[in-house]
Every structure is written in structure tokens, then in C-alpha cells.
């Protein structure tokens, strides 16, 4: 019999999927019914996700909340997926509130697909099985393409197409890598849980060289690792706002999660030439993409690009964990994954609130919005400050932890990486000033005269409050996350060391 938390975990994943199914099949359900159902689909995980994280941190928690899922592969949490699941649930809830207030064609299908996307993302973090990982991964991505293609904004067709191709290619590459690893380890599909895979691979003397690279670059594509990032900015920009929120905030994190739980744990991805590539590509994410952010002239594109740039420090946290043999970089990286999810979703949400009022995302047409919408300005500034790592918000701990973890690197390299604190401040504050400060722009005045708009609505406030409140909470009480991650990151660091040392031991045996 499943334990109580294991049942909660199952409900958290299946509720949005089942409700999504009801909405998609019942396309003609009356609006109020559909809204109620959909709200339930977003709210149930939002309640269960944080609850599960708290349960997970209690010392008497039953092992891993494990259960056999309805699809044949198991459900389980671990120290890293528990906070990610909670974050996804909150991001999904905020995105849900946004989606429920939107007027779109085929609304029930739209809501149902977003619920699918959410359920799939939750599922990735709720399974302990390779098959489950890929199943939910596709389950989340396919609705993302469809939603972008049919409900997206300007440029949605090429963006959706490019995204689909990239992400499918990435998934194929990583799957190829994992199949090679599975083959080498001699595990059958039925037993291919993460733990079994790591254990089995630890016994394997020699893995094909490309295994680690396929997993790293394949899953890295999902997380927009340079130079496989070209899909990300147009993809987020063209997608409808709730989709951008879930995608950039939560869904993208499963690429990183996969790299941690499969790549870092058992395939030496941070050593040798591959490790060098990993380092430099991650630095490019920080620095080159950071520079690209500086020239963006469209608010949503800027947010999209900056969300790519913010992946750089996370990759570096993973890298330094593998090379230094210390868990601190990984702890900080997971922390930043959670915090970035919250702040990034909040920014997409609030940027959309700007657009519904000002009618544009173009920074040169915006200006002076704070006079007409002061609370929107305050929330947007708070979210911006969170994203550029102001202490008090969660992102700060993640960023500073990664910088400190990199302390053994050459000073100039640390300098390039830490320059993100300046670069991100430049583009983020420039956007704030261009959108909210200064005198009201002409375009805005005209629009206000023809269609007067108010300050941020209660729905938007509630959604932003959930995200920013959660970010503040982990900012003030970082142990909420680290209590969950600490034991597992320590374990993974040991595995990573083992994986890295395996080739070095070879000559001795000969």
C-alpha cells in the first residue's frame, strides 16, 4: 500500500492531467464549469507541491515517497526534485491564474493543454525512472509546441517550428546517450531507475566517449546551453504568457535536472575535454548571451534572452561541483533553479500586464507607466530585483553560492563570470527605466486617452504575490531548500568524483 505522501505525489501529477483531459474532450463545457475545473487543476498541485516539500524535510518522512505509478513506472521524490516540484506547482498556479483571465479562442482546449504541460513538468520531477522521465518530458513538450503554434503572438510559426526541432533533436541526442549508458550498464528498461543506473554505471569500466557528451548537449539544449540556445528567445517571446511562464520558469529546468541526476552522477561530464567544453559554453551563456541582452529593444525578448543568460551560472554550479568535488556549487545551482523559476515566471507575467496596458513590448514606445500603474511598477521592480540577485530574494543565494563555489578558479575567469552582476543590472534597470520611469510616453498617452487602463488587477496581483512571496520566503529562510538538497548533493558529488576518477584508474590496471 502506498504511503500518504506517495499518494499526495500521485495526485499532484495526475490531477492536472486528468482535468486537462476533461477540458480537452469536453470542448463545449460551459465556461464557468471549465473555469472551475481548470482552477482546481492548477490549485491542487500548488497546495500539494509545497506541502510535499515540507513533508520531505521532516525527519520521519517515509523513504522517497515511492509508489508504482499508473503507467508502469514508479513515482518518487528526491532531495533535488522536491523543491523543483514545489516551484513548478507554484509557477503553474500563477500561470493558471493568468490563463483563466485570458480571452482566447477554444478556451477549454487552451486551458487543457496548459494543464497537460503543467502535469508533464510535474511528472518529470515526480518520477524516479528513466522511462518516466522521457514520457513526461514529451508529455510536457508537445502541448508547448501546440500552444505556441496556435495561441502564440507574432512570429509564432517559425518560433514553434524551431523550438520543436531543437528540443526534439536535444531529446533524441540525450536519449541516444542514455541508451548507450543503459546498454553498457546491462540494466533492463524495467529496472532503469535513476538510482539503479548510477549504481550500475559505477561498476562499468569503460563507457563510450560520446555518452556524456550526448547527454550533456542533448539535455543542455533543453536548458538553452550555448550554442544550442537559438530556439529559446524566439520560443518564449512568441508563446502565450502562461506558456512562457511555465516553459522558461519550470519546464526548462528539467534539462538541468536530467544533467544533474543522470549526467553529473554517473557520466564524467565535467572532466577531460568535455568538461572544458562545458565550462566554456557555460561561460558563453553568462557573458556572450549577457551582451546580447544589452542590445534588446523589446521587453519580452529581453526577458527571454536574460532567461537564457541566467542559465549560465547554473551550468557553472554543476560544472564546479564535478571538478572541485565539493557539493556547494550543486546546492547553489539547485537553489538558483528554484529561485529563477519563480522570478522568471513573475517577470513574464508582469511584462504581459505591461503589454495589456501599453499595447506594446517595445521599449522605445514605453515610458512613464509608473505614474498610471504604480503597483504594477512596484511588482515589476521587485521581480527585476529578484532576477538580478538582490538579497532577500532567493536568486541571491544561488548566484552568490555559485560565485563562491568557483573561488578556486583563476581570478580573471571568476571576474568574467561574476561580471553578470553588472551586465544583468545594466539591462534590467534599463528596461525598468524605459518602461516605468520618466515622463509618460506619447504613445502611452494616446492609448490611455482612447482606452483608459487601471493599475494591475487583483488576479495579476495574486499571481505575482504567490511567486514573489515564495522567492522572498526562500530568500529569508534558505534552509527551506537546502535541508532538502544537502544530503543528495553530497551523495551526487561523491558519485561525480567516482565517475571522474574511473578513467584515471585505467592505466594502473594495465
Amino acid at each position, binding site marked *: 500500500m502506498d504511503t500518504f505522501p506517495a499518494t499526495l505525489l500521485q495526485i499532484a501529477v495526475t490531477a492536472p492531467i486528468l482535468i486537462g483531459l476533461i477540458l480537452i474532450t469536453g470542448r463545449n463545457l460551459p465556461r464557468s464549469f471549465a473555469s472551475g475545473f481548470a482552477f482546481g487543476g492548477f490549485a491542487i498541485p500548488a497546495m500539494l507541491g509545497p506541502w510535499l516539500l515540507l513533508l520531505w524535510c521532516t525527519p520521519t518522512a517515509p523513504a522517497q515517497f515511492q509508489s508504482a505509478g499508473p503507467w508502469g513506472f514508479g513515482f518518487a521524490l528526491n532531495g533535488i526534485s522536491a523543491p523543483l516540484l514545489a516551484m513548478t506547482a507554484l509557477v503553474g498556479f500563477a500561470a493558471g491564474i493568468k490563463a483563466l483571465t485570458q480571452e482566447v479562442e477554444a478556451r477549454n482546449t487552451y486551458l487543457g493543454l496548459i494543464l497537460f504541460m503543467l502535469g508533464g513538468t510535474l511528472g518529470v520531477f515526480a518520477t524516479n525512472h528513466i522511462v518516466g522521465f522521457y514520457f513526461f518530458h514529451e508529455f510536457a513538450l508537445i502541448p508547448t509546441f501546440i500552444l505556441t503554434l496556435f495561441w502564440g503572438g507574432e512570429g509564432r510559426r517559425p518560433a514553434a517550428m524551431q523550438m520543436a526541432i531543437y528540443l526534439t533533436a536535444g531529446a533524441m541526442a540525450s536519449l541516444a546517450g542514455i541508451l548507450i549508458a543503459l546498454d553498457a550498464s546491462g540494466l533492463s528498461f524495467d529496472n532503469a531507475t535513476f538510482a539503479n543506473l548510477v549504481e550500475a554505471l559505477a561498476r562499468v569500466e569503460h563507457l563510450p566517449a560520446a555518452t556524456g557528451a550526448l547527454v550533456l548537449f542533448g539535455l543542455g539544449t533543453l536548458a538553452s546551453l550555448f550554442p544550442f540556445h*537559438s530556439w529559446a528567445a524566439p520560443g518564449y517571446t512568441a508563446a502565450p504568457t502562461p506558456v512562457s511562464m511555465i516553459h522558461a520558469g519550470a519546464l526548462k529546468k528539467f534539462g538541468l535536472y536530467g544533467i544533474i541526476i543522470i549526467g553529473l552522477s554517473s557520466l564524467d561530464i565535467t572532466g577531460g575535454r568535455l568538461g572544458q567544453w562545458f565550462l566554456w559554453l557555460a561561460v558563453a551563456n553568462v557573458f556572450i548571451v549577457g551582451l546580447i541582452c544589452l542590445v534588446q529593444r523589446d521587453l519580452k525578448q529581453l526577458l527571454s534572452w536574460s532567461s537564457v543568460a541566467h542559465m549560465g551560472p547554473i551550468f557553472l554550479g554543476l560544472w564546479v561541483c564535478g571538478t572541485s568535488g565539493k557539493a556547494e556549487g550543486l546546492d547553489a545551482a539547485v537553489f538558483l533553479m528554484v529561485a529563477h523559476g519563480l522570478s522568471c515566471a513573475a517577470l513574464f507575467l508582469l511584462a504581459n500586464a505591461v503589454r495589456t496596458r501599453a499595447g506594446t513590448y517595445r521599449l522605445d514606445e514605453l515610458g512613464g507607466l509608473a505614474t498610471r500603474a504604480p503597483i504594477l511598477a512596484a511588482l515589476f521592480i521587485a521581480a527585476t530585483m529578484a532576477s538580478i540577485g538582490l538579497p532577500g530574494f532567493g536568486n541571491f543565494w544561488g548566484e552568490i553560492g555559485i560565485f563562491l563555489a568557483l573561488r578556486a578558479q583563476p581570478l580573471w575567469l571568476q571576474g568574467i563570470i561574476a561580471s553578470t552582476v553588472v551586465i544583468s543590472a545594466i539591462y534590467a534597470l534599463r528596461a525598468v527605466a524605459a518602461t516605468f520611469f520618466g515622463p509618460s510616453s506619447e504613445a502611452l498617452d494616446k492609448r490611455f486617452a482612447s482606452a483608459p487602463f487601471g493599475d494591475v488587477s487583483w488576479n495579476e496581483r495574486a499571481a505575482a504575490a504567490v511567486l514573489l512571496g515564495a522567492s522572498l520566503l526562500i530568500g529569508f529562510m534558505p534552509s527551506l531548500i537546502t535541508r532538502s538538497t544537502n544530503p543528495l548533493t553530497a551523495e551526487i558529488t561523491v558519485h561525480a568524483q567516482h565517475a571522474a576518477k574511473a578513467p584515471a584508474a585505467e592505466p594502473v590496471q594495465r
Partner: protein
Amino acid sequence: MPSDYSCLVHWILFLPLGAAALSALLLRKQGTLAAWLSTATAFAIAAISFNLLRHEGNVTWHVELAKFGDLSLGFGYLIDANARLMLFVVSFVAAWIHLFSVGYMKDDSARGRFFAGLSIFMFSILGIVVADNLLMTFIFWELVGFSSYMLIAHYFDKDFAAAASKKAFITNRIGDLGFILGIAMCLSLYGTVDFAALKDHAAAAKTIPVAVGALLMCGFLGKSAQFPLHVWLTDAMAGPTPVSALIHAATMVAAGVYFMARVSFLLAPDVLHFIAISGAGMAALAGLCALAQTDIKKSLAYSTLAHLGIMGCAIGLGHPELALMHMAMHAFFKATLFLGAGSVIHGCHHEQDMLKMGGLLKKMPLTAATFIAATLSNCAVPFLAGWYSKDAIIEAAFHGEHIAIFAFLSLAALATCLYSGRMIRLVFLGEANSEEAKHAHESPWLMTLPLIVLGLVYSVAGGFLAHSIIPASSLQPIGEALKEASFHLTAPSTIVGLLSLLIGFGGALKFYGAVRGADALQVLSPRTYHLLEHRWMDGLYRWYIDSVQRRIAEFVAFLDLLFINGVAVRWIGGGVPAVLGYLTGRTFHRGQVRAYAFWIVLGTLFLAWFLIAR
């Protein structure tokens, strides 16, 4: 036995945070309530800090917030004599500035936001003072930057305020970049970021690497507006005047000095030498630049830059206690000067141009009296607060046989007297030069009371009062400073000071009386005036941003679009099939989605393969 008063420190730190949260969330529209809540909090903190001054002994308190691997993220207090003094100075000055703001901001529609900002600033600056480790210092350091940003942007619908707030934040962050690297280096070398532990390590080590001090110094350069990161401070005057008084004169900029004093054991001789030279040079240069400003607040801002240079110089000379003492004295008289300027601006219906003032002595007697008293303290007239600290530093430079530094500081002393005399002459003496000045009126008591308290009591008589109330242990930094200086009336510093007063102050009073409604120097030598007025560093940065940084960024973005998005993916994905299509007779033509997809996948894989297996 020393008593454990860490509980009092909790109150000091978290009262303002609570007030800020309450104001921001609930009192946005109840401006008056928010104003008094914030002010009451500030006075409560001042009372507690005053109480702390009477406690003996150090207090430490520490709690671990979380762990990243083995890295402990700690939060704690280290209250020593320096911290107690700084707590008192900050909270006392701040309390009166809060009261002043109640009057000054009376008609502002966004008082809730303003006072929430002041409270969050109090939380941040007090956090720096009590912090027991580098990481916690950095946390509050950043928060100070944020609150400064919000308060400078108070009049956000004005373009200059929007630009100034951004500039202040980004410039501070450039300094913070070095600060982060410094923290990382401390952690890497000594395995800890705790001040007490670092001090032990530093004492045990024979030499401290230059890089540690140089990197930590970057934080100081940014926050205390030292060369070459000084450019933000004069622009920061775009904020409301009480903000300029509190943040950009008395406390925030002093935080850098306090921090340098706190980690002085980590500063290698080379670093100290740099700080001393650049501080002294800065003091002289900024003092002269103050002569070429007509905006009263900007002129005062340059004066602050000069004094920060002097404090930096004291640290560089190896006298952090002198720097702290000057910081304390400066906090009082500069706050008075800024509040006085605020009162003048308020009285003259928001006129800030000194050339349009004049003759305010009779119309605003209380403001004038306190302003002049603080000015004299600023000019280091013997036995006033500024004299004790500033001349002690000049004396230290002389005894340290740093002739260049001594010369720069002497020039700074002269410049101080010049711009002070000019300010008094233009604003308070002569006749009114505009309608606004003609109809000037004295400010209400809410504004003059803080002026009187801060100005008269502290600029003039602070030293004498302090001795009778506060135990020697808490005033240890000041006591030591004075003992070390032990200067007398024939000391070089006193001679320099008196000569400057005579030539500078007297000369300026006469010189600037010659021309009415214009700047005498500008009339006499427009070229000199322009040389001092022109903002060379701003020009340099502007050029860098427009011609270097932006072009590089645009070029990189172009390369990304061309090579990664365009050639590597699209070209391999689209170009190869096009060529093949041509060769094989339109097999792949028509841009069918499936073929397109296939080739892009292949292109991506090819690129991946190229990167890995090359």
C-alpha cells in the same frame, strides 16, 4: 562582566524592516501615518543605540541560515566599540532627518513609498554596521544600494531622476563585483568569511596578498564614491533633499569607510598606499570642483566627495580610527548642511540655484545660523567638531612623512574654505537675486528643530557633551584618535588650517561679493570655471558605453544571429538541402517542413559532433 545585549540588536535591525513592510503594504495611501510610523521607529532605534553606547564589552551572536555543501551561510552580530559608535551616529542623525522629512515631504503624494524607502534603508545600513561576516556585510551592502536606488528614483517621472538612480545602482554594482571576488578570495585563502576568524588568520600570516585588500576595496570605491567610481554621487542629488542628507552625505557613503576600518587587517601596504594617495587627490580635486557648481546640493555633493577622500586617506595612512571619527563628525555637520540646504530650497519655493539666492540671513535666521555653524565646522575652525577630526588626519599625513598626501590635503583644506565661503556669500549674504529669494520664508519647526539639534549641539558642542554622557570604552575610537594626534596650535596642520581659513574663507567672502547674479570665477576666468565644471570621467564613461560596450554587444548579437542562428543551424539546415536540391533536381525543394526539420536536426547533430569530437 559584559552584558549580552544581542536582543537589543535584534530590535535595532528588525524594527525598521517591520516599519518598511507595513508602510509599503498597508500605508501606501496613509502618508501621514507612514511618515510618523517611520519616524517613531527611527527615534526608537536611536534610543536603543544610545543605550548600547553605555554598555561595555563586545557582543557576538551567530546563527547558520543554511548550508551549501560545507559552506555555511551565516547571519550574526559583532558589536565592538566601532560598531556601537557607528550605530549611534547613524541612528541619531537618521532620526532627526526622519523628523525633518515629515515637514519637508508634507505635500508629497507618495509619502508612503518615501518613508518605506527610508525605513528599508535604515534596516540595510544598520545591517552593515552589526554584521559579523563578509557575506552578511555584502547582503546589506546590496540592500543599501537598492534602497538608495529607490529613493533617488523618488521623482521617477523626471528623466534625470530615472537616469541618476540607474547610474547609482550600476556604478555600485561595479564596485560590488570586486567585493564578491574579494569574499571568494578570503574564503579560498582562509576558509572563512567571519571577521573574527579572518583577523586571527591575518595576524598569523606574515603577509596579506595585495589582491585581497584590492578587491575588497572595490566595494568601498563604489559605495563611498571614491575615484574612479565617484561619478554617481553628484547625480544622486536628484533624490529629495532629506535623502541626500541621510544617504548621500551622512550614512551610506560612510558605510564604505566603516567597512574598510572593519577589515583594515586585510589591507596590504600597497593597497593602503593607493587608498591614501587617491583619497587625498580626490579630496583636493572634489573640493575645487565644488567651486564650479551653482546648484547648492551639487556643490555640497562635491564637498561630500572631498570629505570621503579625506576619510579614505586616513584609512590609507593606517589610522582607521581617525577615519571613523571624521566619519562621525562629518555625518553631523554634513547632515546639517544638507538639511539646511533643504530648508533653503523649501523656503525659496524649490529654487536650487545659488546664484538666484542671496540675503537669506535675515529671512531665514534659524536656518542661516545652523548652516553657518555647520559650515565653520566643515572648514575646521578650531574647537568645532570638524577641526578635531580633519586636522588630526592632516597632522597624521605630516607625521607619516607623506609629503604629497600632506600637500593634497592642505589644498583640500583650502578648497573647503573657498567653497564654504562662496556658499555662505551667495546664499545668505548680499541681496536677494530672484523673486523666490525675495519671498523666502523660514521653514516650520519640524524642519528647523532637527537643524538646531544636529547643527548647534553636535557640530559645535558634540565633543564636550559626549565625554560627560558616554563611557570611555564606547568612545575608544575617538579617544585613541585624539591621543594619537595630540596636536597643538603650532602644529603644521593647525597652521595650514588657519591659513586656509584666513585666505580661503575670507577671500571667498570678498571675491564672490564682487559680481551679482553671476559666478565671479566664471566672469573672471571662464576657462578655469569650465575646467572645474566639466565632468571628465562622465565623458569618458559615456564614450566607453556608447562607442565600446554597445558596439561590442551589438557585434556579438550580430555574430550570434549570423553564425549560430543563421549559418550553423539555418544554413546547414537550409543551405545544404538547397544545394543538394539543386544537384539532385529539386528533391528537397519547396521548403517542406519535414525536410526542413530533418536537415536542421542533422545540422544540430553535426554541430554537436563538431564541438565534441573535433
